[in-house]
């Protein structure tokens, strides 16, 4: 961007060559999406602590490279479906941070009108299909989206993100079997952050490499990538997308990443199940920090620009929080608005004394 390419020195050229041939604009977009995601989650944590966000709130700090690396290469007409740690996926897909924050605040301007909250972010206009909070439940749903794509003979794909714990459950295997057998264009991404809540995945999974779970299903490709490296994730995803689009075949990408915070806002980042030292060690591989350095060395951005991007991200999330604060709360009648497509029957009949 600011640094002209002809002025780059030798190490910079090598660094440049490692950037997948992406142009500066795209590289900066990836960095800024991760930065926005980080700042958004920090603001969400703050708002949670002062009681503006309720319920379960699962934060994404540390995993930004996965959402950005997987969602950024999709076409607008592709589909995205994810689990309950979904704020950054929604941001990367293009939902306005104000609409996401308003959803977290339970307000009418939220992307799910305040009816879903943190775990259930949706935007049909962006083919962002949620936000699903029963572990593993959306893995078959993604297969169904793939089914619809094949049914209509389209060349779209469905990207499905889920956590590592999903690979031990039935829906994962049922869906993988059908996705492989029926040749459904789904890119499955396992965000392996090492822990299902507070349980180390290797204490409960009878397999070392989670990606190997795919080998039981003929036609399903699998790969393990460094989920702290946005370009590694991006490259693996692009290959899986191409495979899905052209050959209608599903893939599994295991992205090894790490979450810095607790499972949700209800538990601390370390304590009973992992040490502070472990968390600190992973922070040295921070996906934003490392990508920032790479882009500076390659001459794509300067440190000054990085600071500007950061300030802009901070400003955006502050504005999002102000917007959410001012957005109206839902009205009582909204309770019945979207239970059924037609009028809710017998509203006043069994009102239980409201």
């Amino acid at each position, binding site marked *: 961007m600011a640094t002209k390419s002809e002025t780059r020195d030798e190490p910079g050229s090598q660094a440049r060559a490692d950037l997948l041939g992406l142009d500066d604009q795209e590289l900066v977009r990836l960095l800024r999406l991760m930065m926005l995601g980080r700042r958004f989650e920090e603001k969400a944590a703050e708002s949670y602590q002062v009681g503006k966000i309720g319920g379960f709130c699962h934060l994404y700090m540390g995993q930004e490279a996965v959402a950005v690396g997987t969602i950024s290469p999709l076409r607008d007409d592709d589909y995205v479906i994810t689990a309950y740690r979904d704020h950054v996926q929604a941001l990367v897909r293009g939902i306005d941070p104000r609409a996401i924050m308003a959803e977290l605040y339970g307000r009418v301007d939220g992307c799910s009108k305040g009816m879903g909250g943190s775990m259930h972010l949706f935007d049909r206009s962006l083919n962002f299909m*949620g936000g699903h909070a029963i572990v593993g439940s959306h893995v078959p749903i993604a297969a169904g989206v793939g089914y619809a794509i094949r049914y209509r003979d389209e060349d779209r794909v469905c990207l499905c993100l889920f956590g590592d714990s999903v690979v031990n459950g039935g829906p994962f295997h049922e869906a993988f079997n059908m996705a492989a057998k029926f040749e459904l264009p789904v890119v499955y991404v396992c965000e392996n952050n090492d822990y299902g809540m507070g349980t180390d995945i290797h204490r409960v999974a009878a397999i070392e490499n989670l990606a190997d779970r795919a080998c039981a299903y003929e036609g399903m490709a699998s790969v393990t990538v460094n989920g702290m490296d946005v370009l590694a994730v991006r490259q693996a995803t692009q290959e899986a997308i191409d495979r899905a689009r052209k050959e209608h075949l599903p893939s599994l990408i295991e992205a090894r990443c790490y979450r810095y915070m607790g499972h949700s806002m209800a538990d601390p980042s370390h304590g009973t199940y992992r040490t502070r030292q472990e968390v600190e060690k992973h922070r040295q591989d921070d996906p934003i920090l490392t990508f920032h350095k790479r882009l500076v060395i390659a001459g794509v951005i300067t440190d000054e620009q990085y600071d500007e991007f950061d300030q802009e991200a901070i400003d955006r999330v502050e504005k999002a929080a102000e917007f959410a604060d001012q957005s109206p709360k839902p009205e009582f009648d909204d309770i019945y608005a979207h239970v059924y497509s037609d009028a809710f029957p017998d509203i006043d009949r069994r009102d239980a004394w409201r």
Partner: protein
Amino acid sequence: MAVITYREALNQALVEEMERDERVFLMGEEVGKYDGAYKVSKGLLDHFGGNEWRVRDTPIAENGFAGMGVGAAMAGLRPIVEFMTFNFSLLAFDAVVNSAAKLYQMSGGQYNIPIVFRGPGGAALQLASQHSQVPDAWYSHVPGLKVVAPATPADAKGLLKSAVRDDDPVLVIEGELLYNIKGEVPDGEHLVPIGKADVKREGSDLTIVAHSKMVHQALQAAETLKKTHGLEAEVVDLRTLRPLDIDAVLASVRKTNRVVVVEEGWPFAGIGAQVADDVQREAFDSLDAPVARVSGLDVPMPYARNLEKQVFPEAAHVVRAAEHVCYLDED
């Protein structure tokens, strides 16, 4: 009007709806090449040119294929998911209750789920407890779902067709013991609205409320009551369990002042409990007797034939309950 079986009526509905709308497809275990475990989808795969996207045989994986149906619906199709029997739907309870029923609301009205889950419910003959149960109340409990349970071939056809056209998830709970019954089905396009009960027999002395195969027990009981006591029982077939057409029940109760609610399922928190609750709240002054309920007994279904007969509600039990609400059993 043609006389056809309940099974044939459902088959006609499937063919007609799949021909009418290309987004409609059927999937489930044995639905294609095998012609359906109960032959409801007989000939369907051939009829649609062997196109397996329209008639999809699935692995035995209810959670998986029910969830897949939800995803297909989110992406714009209108799936019909067959459970070989509703007993197996328990493996898909999450897909039906946590996903299909809730997505519309939790997405703030963005993703309605136009899907049909269908298959037989209830006991058949000596299939023991895991294959002999009634899912009606479980699913009727859930806001976001619609539940229909037709008793006749005409209602089976008309309700299944309406279910396919509905923009929300609809469970069509068929009767395993009803597939062979015959009845008149109107020629041409035949739709039965969801949420409308039907008076299957008019009467003025008491109301018998029933659905699915219990409608037939109720009608049989009504004939016995006429013969033995000269009573005219009105039989109200609920047809849809959610949304419940309680107005139809109330209209009848206000006329007869006595009511017996019959269901095949377990009594605790059953359909009859809901009907009794609504009736006592809205027609208290019309009642000349407490509401009586006839249901299956409150146990898992035993295998032994003599015991199974005891658990299953029959016309004689309905007659006894009717005599009770008419104060004919006092000695």
